[in-house]
């Protein structure tokens, strides 16, 4: 029997704190994008936008705190602002996230104060570019490490982007469901639910596509993906992510939308709440799985 072939001392350098950073960061930028889209649609969805605008900086700051807790030398964090490495995605990411947090905070403040609409809109559009970049960066820094087979897929950054949108939207909807008495919120929830359903469907498609692609790729990629599909991580993958995190909320959302028809959401907010919770759980598990299983590659 061969002795374990994994790494040295710490077999998986990245553990739960990195997952929390990715989850909160993705959620935050997704909420920001949701807020900008909602306000671009109509003034009616003011409350939805406000919720998204407030969640965004709080979540991303929460993610950064988790990241700092993960560093072995957190007090040196500020050096990353001037010690740059053009080939390191992490190096870019620090600046992009900082600029985004500043924009998101201003955006949130302008929403709360309900003033300077044109400045707010401009901030929204500029911030959206950074939000998009951050969501992609979450996946890209894994892919460009390029020595862990599970991450060697061009779909990984795309999956992180779509997952950021679904978890962000889900977080906004979850909170909005509790404020459904306010004007415009019910319509906003109904509209956002349609979008959420579409993005959940897209995420499901991308995750399954990624699995199929890697299962037919190089030996390392195949072995890595087999861990998820039939191996040690298969329970979390199939039950936690595919069924609970994506398939069930997708089906519920479609069924709910069918019941809702146009506009009226009925008296119950159960559907958005349940769907949101499932999507958030699934989004967290997806990141946990990709980060953890990705580091479980044989090293020889």
């Amino acid at each position, binding site marked *: 029997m*061969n002795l374990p072939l994994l790494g040295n001392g710490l077999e998986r*350098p*990245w553990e739960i704190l990195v997952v929390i950073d990715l989850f909160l960061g993705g959620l935050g930028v997704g909420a920001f994008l949701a807020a900008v889209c909602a306000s671009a649609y109509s003034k009616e969805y003011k409350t939805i936008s406000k919720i998204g605008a407030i969640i965004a900086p709080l979540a991303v700051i929460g993610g950064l705190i988790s990241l700092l807790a993960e560093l072995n030398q957190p007090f*040196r964090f500020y*050096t990353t602002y001037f010690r740059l490495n053009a*080939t*390191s995605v992490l190096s870019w990411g620090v600046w992009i996230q900082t600029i985004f947090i500043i924009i998101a905070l201003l955006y949130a403040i302008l929403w709360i104060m309900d003033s300077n609409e044109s400045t707010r809109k401009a901030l929204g559009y500029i911030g959206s570019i950074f939000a998009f970049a951050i969501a992609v960066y979450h996946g890209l820094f894994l892919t460009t490490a390029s020595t*862990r087979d599970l991450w060697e897929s061009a779909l990984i950054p795309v999956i992180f982007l779509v997952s950021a949108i679904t978890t962000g939207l889900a977080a906004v909807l979850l909170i909005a469901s509790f404020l459904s008495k306010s004007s415009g919120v019910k319509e906003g929830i109904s509209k956002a639910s349609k979008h959420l359903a579409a993005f959940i469907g897209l995420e499901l498609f991308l995750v399954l596509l990624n699995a199929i692609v890697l299962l037919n790729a190089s030996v390392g990629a195949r072995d890595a993906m087999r861990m998820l599909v039939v191996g040690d991580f298969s329970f979390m993958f199939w039950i936690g992510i595919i069924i609970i995190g994506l398939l069930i909320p997708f089906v519920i959302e479609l069924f709910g939308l069918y019941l809702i028809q146009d506009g009226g959401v009925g008296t119950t907010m159960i559907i958005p709440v349940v769907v949101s919770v499932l999507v958030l759980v699934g989004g967290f598990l997806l990141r946990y799985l990709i980060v953890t299983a990705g580091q479980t590659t044989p090293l020889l």
Partner: protein
Amino acid sequence: MAEKRYAMVLDLRRCIGCHACHVACKSENEVPLGVFRTHVRYYERGEYPDTRRYFLPNLCNHCKHPACVRVCPTGASWKREDGIVLVDYDKCIGCKYCMAACPYGVRFIHPEKQVADKCSFCVHRVDAGIVPSCVNTCIGRARIFGDMNDPKSEVAKLIAANPVTVLKPEKGTYPSVFYIGKSVKEVE
């Protein structure tokens, strides 16, 4: 005059798994308990009664295109002109990106210094003109060290005269640690 490129050749036909290299390195570099700059892995091949056990010494490969250097956000992981890859302890923030990026799992977080660390090819010895500690102590003379760009060096001659392989060549890191007698795939 070509630039230096320090390399190591591991002749697995001679390795007996005594771990002297492992211990010498620990002692020379004061490596704390629980982490290793170099160690020896074991493999068994075949089914009983035709089984054999093989030994594979492992250390930082000081790659020509190191993934760790590419991903380090602060440049704490850097490569010297002569090919030795080092960690600048003052710059490292402990993000562990290098550890996730290294395909060989040879990096670790130093428990006391709380920064990334790894085999340094005993750079303090090499700069003084002597070979790394593991090479010095190997009783089977399975470890050979030198400048592979110098055609008169023992490593260059061994690389030229023997079929050598490296670990995970498909990762594009171009390691500077070459193995003689390693089969293509160690794992089932």
